[in-house]
């Protein structure tokens, strides 16, 4: 089959499906495992990794909408500083004073937007969804190493979400010290009202969140190391799994440090210790705290905070690699280099944290060291981009919605990643630190591109998640609106940043130097709000397709990895018969001499004599 035009499920049977006859087993196992299950155990307290993944995804979508609403609110303020916002009074209540947004509430909005997007959407919603969904399916396991821990992981996340969400409705407002919660601002309720109960709830919520991440992470790593199916060596793992594996390791090693920072902050806030506080006179009173260091908190925070951005982006990288290869009908270029660069990024991500702190009063010598390490991380990132480009080269590209988002991911990753070379340079960071240049940089490189990875993943694996297809046309509309919107928002933001406009400013009109960009800010706000509304196309498509979408086939994308050898809606246990064994790497697309343009991982070399490469001939025997 030289092309990949419509192929029905049956016609793939010879190459595509598990080598076990599955009809009888199928029904038997299903009856046995599922029919008696109470809905509470099936849909709510489920231990099935696929259900947990769906729970993470839907919670993540909920959070993304909240995060988007918050950003629309503060973009209103930035775009139209003179406008009266009385019409928001019914929703925001006392946070609108005389038609104006309360400046402390503005800070609460940016704080919560950051917290929600980084942790609840792009960590839990992205990595939580796809690590859970794909790890057992792609390594060939019945479920996670511990289904129970996995369930706990979701419910800790849920608890964390409930606490964080309730904090939005506090009388004194949610946390407002920035998502980085630098003390003393976050430690002293006298400094900002959000540092009262709002901050306490933020910290409590984050502790639950960290527990959830660790429970999940330990499970992911254990499953990948121990539960791979027969023949699935580490060098035959799809790049998605490599990405999830390294992401989980980063999380396990760095989240506990955030936990310790949060704990010490709780001590400073509630028990009078001085880890981060010293020499403070506030609200007419000199505090007793002496000898603490706010810079210490920054070290602890960014020791998580920096790996965190890779925790966000690496799963997206893995999925994009997979989707680009599948839809270019070509092997991913440089499989080993891709793994090597992921490992390089993971290692380096632990030793670059202080590039967030060049001008915080840290010893300038440390600044030199961290500048060196930071700019080095551009090399493995560059290698990844070149490999993606080489994967497209001479492919036979199918633009599914997932593919569009993957191409978009690469584009955004380039645009945002390159400015990191400016910001990683300590000298240039003196001027750029905390300006909109930074905001533009990270929104492109880890915000938007991780979102694009998330969308790509949802469009691509939706058929396996829900047994139905998402509507492709709506997917195209969603992609183009979002892609154009994101660039319209974040490209001009660089200009504002180069001029030195500081972030987290409620209004810039007080400064001559910053007041010249009123039009551009209006433009950015408009684009941001429109791009946000475009997301409802996705949300409609998502929920509509769950119930009414076209029925999927077993392997709609003609893909090679193991998840596509499961039935259309895999039950708990994933494969109705024996778990298929793996014989080859996951990227045998368009192999010369092969009949179809893809050979699934579970097809032995002995079945494909015509396409075997010289070294594979020995394996065939």
């Amino acid at each position: 089959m030289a092309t990949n035009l419509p192929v029905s499920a049956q016609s793939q049977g010879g190459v595509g499906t598990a080598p076990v006859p599955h009809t009888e087993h199928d029904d038997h196992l299903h009856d046995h495992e599922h029919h008696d299950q109470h809905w509470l155990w099936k849909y709510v307290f489920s231990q099935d990794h696929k259900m947990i993944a769906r729970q993470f995804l839907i919670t993540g979508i909920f959070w993304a909408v909240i995060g988007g609403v918050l950003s629309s609110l503060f973009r209103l303020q930035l775009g139209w500083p003179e406008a009266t916002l009385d019409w928001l009074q019914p929703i925001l209540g006392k946070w609108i004073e005389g038609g104006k947004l309360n400046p402390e509430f503005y800070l609460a909005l940016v704080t919560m937007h950051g917290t929600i997007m980084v942790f609840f959407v792009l960590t839990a919603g992205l990595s939580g969804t796809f690590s859970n969904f794909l790890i057992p399916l792609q390594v060939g396991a019945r479920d996670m190493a511990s289904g129970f821990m996995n369930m706990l992981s979701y419910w800790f996340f849920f608890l964390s979400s409930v606490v964080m969400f309730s904090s939005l409705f506090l009388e004194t407002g949610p946390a407002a010290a920035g998502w980085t919660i630098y003390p003393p601002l976050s430690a002293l309720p006298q400094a900002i009202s959000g540092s009262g109960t709002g901050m306490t709830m933020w910290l409590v919520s984050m502790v639950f969140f960290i527990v959830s991440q660790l429970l999940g992470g330990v499970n992911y790593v254990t499953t990948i190391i121990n539960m791979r199916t027969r023949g699935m060596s580490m060098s035959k793992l799809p790049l998605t799994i490599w990405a999830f594996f390294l992401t989980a390791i980063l999380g396990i090693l760095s989240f506990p440090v955030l936990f310790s920072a949060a704990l010490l902050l709780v001590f400073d806030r509630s028990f009078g210790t001085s880890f981060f506080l010293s020499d403070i006179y506030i609200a007419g009173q000199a505090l007793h705290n002496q000898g603490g260091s706010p810079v210490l908190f920054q070290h602890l925070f960014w020791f998580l905070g920096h790996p965190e951005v890779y925790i966000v982006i690496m799963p997206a990288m893995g999925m994009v690699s997979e989707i680009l290869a599948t839809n270019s009908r070509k092997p991913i270029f440089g499989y080993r280099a891709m793994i090597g660069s992921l490992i390089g990024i993971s290692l380096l991500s632990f030793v670059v944290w202080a590039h967030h702190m060049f001008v915080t009063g840290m010893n300038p010598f440390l600044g030199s060291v961290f500048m060196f390490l930071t700019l080095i991380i551009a090399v493995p990132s560059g290698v990844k981009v070149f490999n993606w480009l080489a994967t497209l080269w001479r492919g036979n590209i199918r633009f599914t919605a997932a593919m569009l988002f993957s191409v978009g991911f690469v584009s955004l990753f380039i645009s945002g990643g390159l400015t990191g070379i400016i910001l990683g340079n300590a000298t240039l960071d003196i001027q750029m630190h905390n300006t909109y240049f930074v905001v533009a940089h990270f929104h492109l490189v880890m915000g938007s591109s991780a979102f694009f990875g998330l969308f790509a993943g949802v469009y691509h694996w939706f058929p396996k998640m829900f047994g139905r297809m998402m509507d492709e046309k709506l997917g195209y509309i969603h992609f183009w609106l979002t892609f154009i919107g994101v660039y319209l928002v974040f490209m001009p933001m660089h200009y504002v940043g180069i001029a030195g406009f500081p972030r987290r400013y409620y209004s810039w009109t007080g400064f001559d130097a910053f007041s010249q960009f009123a039009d551009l800010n209006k433009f950015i706000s408009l684009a941001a709000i429109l791009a946000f509304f475009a997301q409802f196309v996705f949300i409609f498509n998502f929920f509509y397709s769950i119930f009414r979408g076209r029925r999927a086939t077993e392997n709609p994308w003609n893909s090679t990895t193991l998840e596509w050898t499961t039935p259309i809606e895999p039950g708990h246990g994933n494969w109705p018969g024996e778990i298929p064994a793996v014989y080859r790497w996951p990227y045998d697309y368009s192999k010369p001499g092969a009949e179809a343009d893809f050979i699934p991982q579970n097809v032995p070399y002995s079945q494909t004599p015509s396409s075997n490469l010289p070294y594979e001939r020995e394996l065939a025997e």
Partner: protein
Amino acid sequence: MTSLTILLVLVLLLVVFGLLFRLQILTAIFSGSYVRQIGTSNRVNAVLMLVFMVVGGAAFFWSFAENFGKMNPPIASIHGHAMEKMFWTTMTVIGVAFVLTQVLLFTYSYKYQHKDGRRAYFFSHNNKIEVIWTIIPAIVMASLIFAGWKAWTRITGPAPKDAVVLEVMGKQFNWLVRYPGRDMKLGVVNYRLIDASNEFGFDLSDKAAMDDFVAPEVHVPKGHPVLIKIRSRDVLHAVYMPHFRVQMYAVPGMPTRFWFTPTATTDEMRAKLGNPKFDYELACNQICGKGHFAMKLKIVVDEPDDYVAWFAAQPPVSKNADLMASFKQMSQQTGLGKGGSQGAKEAAIEEAGETPAPLSAQASM
């Protein structure tokens, strides 16, 4: 009532949208185009990729050029000019990489779109290419690191001995400025002595503090190195002076510093920009609470002679009766400020080794 109507209209619109969507699917099913995986839409998307590159790229370059003037606020410090150069050099380097990779990405997407009967080229790896595109970026990075490191060491190195010294202290929500006075030594301060009239917490048992003076704005002489000592008395702030390319956090409990040499007086800059209202500004650039966005401080760059005259005209704190009275009261209350307190000693150690020579012009006073 109106909001209810709006809501109703929105709901109806959604319903209409849903029906249209359903209708479109049904017609597609009947026409048979629904099951075809790779049809016209593949071609449309491929063309759109190309269109996006051309139109988007053009829009980007146009808007960049259009805003270029605004992006470059005037620079008025020696290291600022060097940084500016490095910034635009780096921007050029990444600009080249940007154009190259984006053009490849979109043209490949267009060029290698699906065609019936064509088969993708099975090309799994090539170590030589990998090595090339590892080494070239590594070399470019190394040279950027080297340039950055050299400048960074120079900028953050010790200030020249003859630098003019002043202190800026951040508080919610304004900046306080003090100068060392004629003895060129900043006196001891202690945060426990702070109150409404002694905002710095001057410890007047220290002789060096007596001639310090507080100023409502920063004055610095042109062409002379200036060392700003930075403190905060409550939460984090950051001293950000975009025209001078200066930024440093103000950290409670940990004094920081930054030095620079201004190259143009306020008057010169006004003349150059043709804007008689122009002023150098100092902004807070680390979130510090409600008034964060309004922590502005005016900076005046004077000709050295004018600076000396201004400096001489400022009344020292010892002339401030309120402050003296407040200090007496506070020091009795707290037992601090008697010359022997622990806090004063620590602060004194901090200040040691920093007795910059007076500004040459001032010495001749």
